[in-house]
């Protein structure tokens, strides 16, 4: 199985560097496991949680200093940089304005640790996922000007849900000219240097209707494939559910038999518990479309042989 991304500090650092450079944030300082980024306003709004502040800034036409994010990627770097920030702030306060009454009370800025599940990284990931939902690309550089074949890419997450969830990432490509469908399409194209291109340049004569039809073809394909594959997990979940429902019915049956006075209340409670149980344990498959792209591929590089 492929290693899950972003599980190491080095990967997270690379991820942040790529993200901030592609949203035009300046890197003010780069040290081992540590970065300082200056945020453009739009990105600032996305990464910090202060809607009222922005409301006020926008309404009053303020021009606040850009926010600086101080991100540490390891606990050691966090400790080291916090000490440095403390020292520098103290020095500045001592040298510049000795007479300033509040000088000793200045609080030094602090760095924050970027960790999986932590607030900042979650925000960055949300921002990335909101910004990277579609794209229209073709290979860059030397291949410019050569005609391309339009492909529709769909990245999706399939969740097998019962009382536990398992998720798979799938990527499919559909050739708009001949309806051929390719599995693992993303893995095939991810390393090709791509550039954003105009719609006509990539898709040629096809419009949104064609894209829509293509998407529904891909959905049918996924559905057929799932129905054809063995779903042992679902059968096991069904069995467990039936057993638990039987126990539940037995229990409430015995209560009603015991004293019939409150039977209405018990029936309601019984039905509620049945519903909760089914909601929790009944197997189902959820598919979430994550990304859609139109990809123009020059004929020689088309991974059609993979089918």
């Amino acid at each position, binding site marked *: 199985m492929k290693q899950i991304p*972003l599980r190491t500090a080095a990967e997270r650092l690379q*991820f942040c560097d*790529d993200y901030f450079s592609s*949203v035009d944030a300046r890197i003010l300082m780069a040290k081992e496991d540590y970065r300082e980024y200056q945020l453009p306003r739009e990105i600032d709004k996305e990464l910090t949680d202060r809607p009222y502040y922005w409301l006020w800034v926008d309404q009053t036409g303020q021009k606040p200093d850009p926010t600086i994010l101080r991100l540490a990627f390891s606990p050691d770097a966090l400790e080291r940089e916090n000490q440095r920030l403390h020292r520098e702030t103290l020095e500045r306060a001592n040298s510049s304005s000795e007479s300033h009454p509040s000088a000793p009370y200045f609080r030094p800025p602090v760095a924050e*640790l970027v*960790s999986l*599940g*932590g607030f900042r990284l979650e925000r960055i*990931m949300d921002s990335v*996922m909101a*910004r*990277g*939902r579609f*794209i*229209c*690309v073709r290979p860059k550089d030397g291949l410019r000007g050569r005609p391309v074949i339009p492909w529709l890419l769909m*990245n*999706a*997450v399939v969740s097998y849900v019962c*009382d*536990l*969830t398992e*998720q*798979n*990432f*799938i990527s499919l490509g559909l050739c708009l000219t001949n309806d051929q469908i390719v599995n693992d399409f993303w893995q095939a194209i*991810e390393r090709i240097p791509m550039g*954003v291109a*105009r719609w006509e340049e990539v898709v040629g004569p096809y419009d*949104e209707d064609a*894209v*829509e039809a293509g*998407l529904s073809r891909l959905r049918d394909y996924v*559905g057929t494939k*799932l*129905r*054809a*594959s*063995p*779903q042992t997990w*679902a059968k096991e979940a*069904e069995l467990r559910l039936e057993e638990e429902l*039987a*126990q*539940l019915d037995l229990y*409430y049956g*015995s209560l009603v038999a015991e004293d019939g006075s409150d039977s209405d209340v018990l029936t309601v409670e019984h039905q*509620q518990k049945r519903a*909760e149980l089914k909601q*929790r*344990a*009944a197997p*189902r*498959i*959820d*598919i*979430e479309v*994550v*990304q859609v*792209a139109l990809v123009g591929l020059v004929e020689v590089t088309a991974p059609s042989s993979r089918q």
Partner: protein
Amino acid sequence: MEPQAIQSTSKTPAIQWHGLDFLSALSAYKENLHFGNYRSQEWTLFRLACLARQAKLANNFHELLVLHHVQGFQPLPHQVETARQVLQRMRGRAILADEVGLGKTIEAGLILKEYMLRQMVRKALILVPASLVLQWTRELNQKFNISCFAQRNHWSWSEYDIVVASLDTAKRLPHKDIIMAQPWDMLIVDEAHKLKNPKTKNWQTVNQIPNKFMILLTATPLQNSLKELHTLVTLLKPGYLGDPTVFAKEHARPEKNTSDMAQLREQVSRVMIRNRRIDGETNLPPRKVRSVSLTLGAKERELYDAVHRFLKDQYRERKSQRASLLPLITLQREICSSPYAAMMTLEKMLKRSRSGRTQATIRDLLALAESIPTYTKVERVLKLIPEIGDKCVVFTEYRATQDFLLFMLRRQGISAVPFRGGFGRGKKDWMKDLFSRKVQVLVATESGGEGINLQFCHHMINFDLPWNPMRLEQRIGRIHRLGQNHEVHILNFATEDTIEAHIVHLLQEKIRLFEMVIGNLDSIVGESVGNGDFEKQILEWSLTSETPEEFGEKLSTYGDQVLCAVQSRTESESLE
């Protein structure tokens, strides 16, 4: 999802598609492309988005994602294993019945976070005792990055996704109705032994709260009868242990059938996990317990004997008038602690007393107490602390003793801070902080003992002993708990020829309480050592015995009874 072979599967689960609102957004994107509003970095963003989504995948049933998301600590093996079992085997409905101090909170946090990461739980309700609401909120926030909120008002239930509240609030109107209307995905109840009776409001409230996953935390899943266990399991899986009346009949029989028991044990193990210290993995460093024998000064001795005589008189008098014995218990325990503490109660008794003779006696006692030049116990503390040369907790039962100790310590130039139950949360934290960073001694009273963890400290002095073993264990639990890496040294002060010496002997030598694991203690407290009764019993023995030897005899018999109870409990514990 590679199909192996096309099979005619009878039933494929329902397939639901999400995120199909693409098309309108796609048109907008196309418009933008026309205007040339595209940037070359978008390909990078697209790639990163794909990476980010894959990083969030719950990609198989067996991996615990949460292990990559905890912060600032490493969960212990038994905690991880428990979380795994609850998720994979028990499917999110379980009783966590670890012994006190093995980290049930951590286990619950791991489970909650795992479900959140797998997008199966969005809204969760955590019901805990009122005094622990803030502590839970902080732990979940800091250790697991779970943004949860302490309930404040009746908006909280719907406003926040993860709410920590007290069961007592939850069962009251209007809160109860609002809670019932929320679609909770997960319900966690701490101290679930409060749910042992299905006729109580507690149980009925919890039974009615909508939930998909439910975790019950208790260190004592059954104290008296198997029926209690049945009641807890009914919350998780109604009907799992069968019809309640049939169950009661079958398991209430005195002659227990071993195969029945084996079957029950197997059934229970599928809904309950109990980690015990004894089982190894959770071993703590040893406790070194020593009693410090003290001899009272002449004046102190005189006072002690005088108070003892006074108590005997009072006991007879009050007993005949059926008056309350409580002040006597207090006085007896205070005089063991310090004359200073006893003076407070004596003064109170003086005000209340209506008999001239009693008043005169009390005045004499007070005069005697005031004439004492030095307190033996306090002197000993002042001598011991520099010898220890490390951080040390001093426990006493009484405010007055606490104040006096603090005063004396500071006068000696030893840094010390107080700690007691009356402090607000913030002040408690502050004192703990001071103690961990700057101060050498923390002087704590009993009531402040709960809810602080002082693993960084390895020395403890029991200035006086509580007469209730469970409370003593609570004290020790403050420093001798998970995270303690050093040997723990415990000193018990025992003043010769006083009740205290006998009690130290009983708890330390006879019951060997300090070596006992808490799990065993839990179980005896419920049965033989009733809370107030034990204290009353000791007072009675001490005041009705003609000689100290006779008193010692009585305590010794009592110790034997406790030991018997523990033994039979250990035998029957194989059930758990």
